[in-house]
């Protein structure tokens, strides 16, 4: 099974050891395709839709969704990336460091934002993202698309578009890459 060093996405400082492959590359493509159709259906097209990928794992999901959306509708919605580190609620309690520079060049006033992330877990990253996005303008609506919803929510947050609902133990780690979604643990 896959083993890789966790450098890009939390938790870091260990080697991810996969125990089970949950989705393969084809499954991911199909899930993206379905979510893209759901986004178009729910918003009656893509007018004012802006995709925001959360650094670092959500950026890939946002890019895949953008590609699928442009194939469906012929136009690709504006895209941005957001690093939520400086809005987290655990600063000072554990090491927190921004990973990438936020890039939102599109006006968010009145936009329908679709936040894209790889894994939805406690919901704390999404809370931080909601907080951060409101500093950029007043969107009409914010929706949430995630590749995997692994449960264990600690805040009243729910996704609008889900690639895969995956029941997990709290100690497990979900790893999402273009090659697939793996369930495993991080060995120190």
């Amino acid at each position, binding site marked *: 099974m896959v083993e890789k060093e966790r450098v890009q996405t939390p938790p870091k400082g260990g080697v991810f050891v996969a125990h089970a492959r949950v989705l393969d590359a084809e499954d991911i493509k199909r899930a993206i395709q379905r979510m893209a159709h759901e986004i178009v259906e729910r918003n009656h097209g893509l007018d004012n839709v802006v995709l925001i990928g959360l650094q670092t794992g959500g950026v890939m999901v946002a890019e895949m969704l953008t590609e699928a959306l442009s194939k469906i509708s012929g136009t690709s919605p504006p895209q941005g990336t957001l690093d939520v580190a400086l*809005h987290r609620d655990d600063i000072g309690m554990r090491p*927190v460091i921004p990973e990438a*520079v936020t890039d939102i060049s599109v006006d968010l006033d009145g936009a329908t934002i679709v936040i894209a992330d790889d894994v939805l877990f406690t919901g704390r990253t999404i809370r931080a993202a909601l907080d951060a996005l409101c500093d950029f303008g007043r969107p009409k609506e914010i929706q949430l698309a995630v590749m995997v919803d692994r449960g264990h929510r600690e805040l009243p947050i729910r996704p609008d578009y889900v690639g895969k609902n995956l029941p997990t133990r709290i100690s497990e780690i979900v790893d999402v890459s273009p090659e697939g979604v793996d369930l495993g643990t991080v060995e120190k």
Partner: protein
Amino acid sequence: MNSIPSRSLLSIEGMTKSDIEEILDLTDTFDEIGRRPIPKVPALRGRTVATVFFENSTRTRLSFETAARRLSADTMSFGAGSSSLSKGESIRDTVEVIEAYGADVLVVRHPAAGIAQRIDNWTDALVVNAGDGCHEHPTQALLDAYTLRKHKGSLNGLRIAIVGDIRHSRVARSDVLAFTMLGAEVVLVAPPTLLPPSLEGWPVTISYDLDEVLPTLDVCYLLRMQNERISEGLIPSVREYTADYGLNIKRAATLPKDALICHPGPTNRGIEIEAAVASDPRSVILDQVSNGVSIRMAVLFLLLGSGRNLGATSELEGGQ
């Protein structure tokens, strides 16, 4: 990052190339925040940054206070002129009082070299040296390096002249260390009386002739000429200094087209730099000022928010 800022930021000396590069990389993130419609993040809510200045300053102090506010920290401000120092209160007592009001970081400027280090020994708060006498001014060197990197991509291989009163300049000292560590070649240009008594161990070359050096430069970094140097007899007159070492339009024309002109401020227009040269398109003096806020946000966040000073107890956990 091992040597900084798990504790205080006192000098460039003792930092490694990768320490500096990590701060510069992180600064891009804080620079972006400054361009947002609401340039503020909640990262340091509940923390207090005190600026403790025993010497006058406009930009360094405003820059640290702006940086702290953009991170949502509270600020506290101490100025020697309006304090009980004039009633005979000692620096140590002053520092203890400020700490008792809940400061987490003391940003310290003082005319005596080494005071930042002494204050660091006295207090449990973290200390950032914002200039101690002729010793160091580390955040100035970081913002200078950041400015040069932004315009030139990298400092590696750049030829940089630092021109003026090197002898009394903490900026020159910190800059030489930072620039050379990042791979630049530094030439100091000054009359012999304004060079340090010994340059042993400084990785620099020396020139007494600005005209000869200018056409070879990527960066011309001018220092402020202080009037007190005349009364000390180190230069015969301001006019003579300006004639030999002032960057005027005629000299600026010999500087390569893609070179940069820097100055730490405050500028003495008409002395080390002619007014028209300060607004030359190659001048990045105002960029230095705005980058100063971003660098200081990065430094304050590394000290207070990154968890570096939590020690080696916790690796990153959770987060999905």
